[in-house]
């Protein structure tokens, strides 16, 4: 059974009088434990699509099921609760909380969203910091580490609650090539270890090659699906 099912998914923005059709009738399925990338030129609708899958926004029409939940109709609070339980987020600008240490940033979703008991919390945080190679920097604050290190911490934060799905909108756009590959490698490794589904968007053609399944978006429509054998 697939983790994500989209059928005839559309999103139209109203910009004053003019309508912007950001997504036009997309249909696709994404299996559990897959490593998927959406590529396409600027304005093709990647962010819009990831926002819909991430329950941050509602589609204008069509069906969207994530882990057997119809997310197209979730209201603010249930949507927040769903995100907190099922989805991890990685952002282009890392978005770590500046007043929290690396350790506390990774622990944030457990503490503030899932109310995990402290023993369990400590175990999870340390094992993820270990996995992304940031254990020895756990007491540093975000402004004391590099961009690549920040994104590794962000990966650990996205995974700490053991979500079904991790969404990353252009996670490597602010990183140099070498660091970008390293972060993608870590994501891949975690996918293999934990069976988490990763969906990321990018317009970096070289990074795209790292994905198992590559969807190409053009002008709000699916223009291609490519499967890589890695």
């Amino acid at each position, binding site marked *: 059974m697939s983790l994500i099912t989209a059928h005839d998914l559309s999103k139209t923005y109203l910009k004053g009088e003019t309508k912007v059709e950001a997504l036009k009738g997309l249909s696709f399925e994404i299996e559990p434990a897959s490593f998927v990338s959406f590529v396409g030129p600027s304005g093709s609708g990647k962010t819009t699509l990831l926002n819909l899958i991430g329950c*941050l926004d509602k589609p204008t029409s069509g069906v969207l099921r994530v882990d057997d939940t119809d997310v197209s109709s979730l209201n603010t609070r249930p949507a*927040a609760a769903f*995100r*907190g339980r099922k989805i991890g987020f990685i952002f282009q600008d890392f*978005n770590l*909380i500046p007043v929290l240490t690396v350790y506390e940033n990774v622990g944030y*979703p457990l*503490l*503030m969203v899932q109310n995990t008991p402290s023993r369990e919390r400590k175990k999870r945080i340390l094992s993820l910091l270990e996995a992304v190679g940031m254990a020895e920097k756990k007491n540093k604050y975000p402004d004391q580490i590099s961009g690549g290190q920040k994104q590794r911490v962000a990966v650990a*934060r996205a995974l700490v609650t053991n979500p079904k799905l991790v969404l990353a909108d252009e996670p490597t756009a602010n990183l140099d090539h070498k660091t970008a590959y390293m972060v993608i490698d870590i994501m891949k490794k975690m996918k293999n270890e934990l069976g988490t589904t990763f969906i990321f968007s990018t317009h970096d053609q070289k990074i795209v090659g790292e994905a198992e399944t590559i969807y190409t978006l053009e002008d709000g429509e699916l223009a291609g699906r490519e499967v890589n054998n890695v």
Partner: protein
Amino acid sequence: MFDLFKIAIRNLLRYRRRTLLTVSLVSIGVVSVLVFISISGSFKNMMIGQITDSFLGHLQIHKKGYVSSIDSLPLTLNLSPKALEKVEKAINEIPDVEAYSKRIKFGGMFSNFVETTNVRLNGVNPEDEVKTVPLLLSRIKEGAKTIRTGEVLVPELLAKGMKVKVGDTVVVIATNSNGSVNGKQFRVGGILESATGPGGRDGYIHIDDAAEILRMDTMAISEIAIRLKNFDKVHEVFDRLKGQLANELNKQGKPAFEVHTWEKLSPFYNIARMIDLMTFFVKLMLMAIVLISIMNVMVMAVYERIREIGTIAAIGTLPGKILAMFLIEGLSLGIFGAAVGTVLGVATISIVSMAKLTFDFGRQKGLLLSPSINIQDILLISMMVITVSVMASLQPAYKASRMNPIDALRHV
């Protein structure tokens, strides 16, 4: 909860200068209010004490209509022995009464054999009077600290004007309620310092001398002054006395007696009320300062952290938790401000208290101001500051909790 406080405090420390400024502003406000309350309060209490303890008493009872014509000291409105008996019975039933004093008040002529002027005199029983107005004796500037028969305590201004000294012989002449004039020689027993308010410049003689001058067959008392064990019970006792005496009607079917608290008898009450009103407005100003400064900081805090709010909201932090985060930040500011302000305020008050400030009021010189503040006032002010701080954070915190994560994340 603990973690929310930790995050709030770290965020406050992140903008150290601004936090310091806000906390200083709030605490300066708290200090000013505490110092104002303590000084104005101690001034008020000391003045009330001065007035009630030096001549007025806490409560007074007269025959109905006496107070409204008190300027003429009408002997026709004195209490008959039967009426007096009823009043004394009512007073004696109240355990909160410490002491009471019966006074015969009258106006007469005062002569030093060269000049004559008019004088207002109280005929009192010295023991009762001193128990009822304990500061009376301390007002005797010259002469023995007592009131003996055959002696008169002369108010200082009168003594000065008439050039009489302790030991001089003077004559007091008065007309009694039947219109017959009588005079009596007195020795000046003491010179009496003036006190603030009507009655503060009256002279004193022994009650027996008063009865003699006025040729009373039976004592006709003008006024009964009452002192309570606990000043705070003045309204309680007032209600009780009034209730008990309300049933005593005169021939016209109206109440025969009137009871007044010091508030109705001394114009200082209006000054006291002004002080209370000023205190109220000073508190109101403090609340306005707290409201504006905390709200300002919290609006800034939310605005600066829109992307962070977007991040934690996207991750799945529920709106209630985001609301709580910002409320706790405002709460912490309020707590710091109140705490620092209280510490500094109490320190300032003890310094002022140790400095032994004195002031003059009317003809009373060198009154010692000993400002103090009670724990209730401190708690009340602190609670108000903290509550207003949370209230000031409500709107910004609510706004933060309602933010759409997509818009917030896109914010630059």
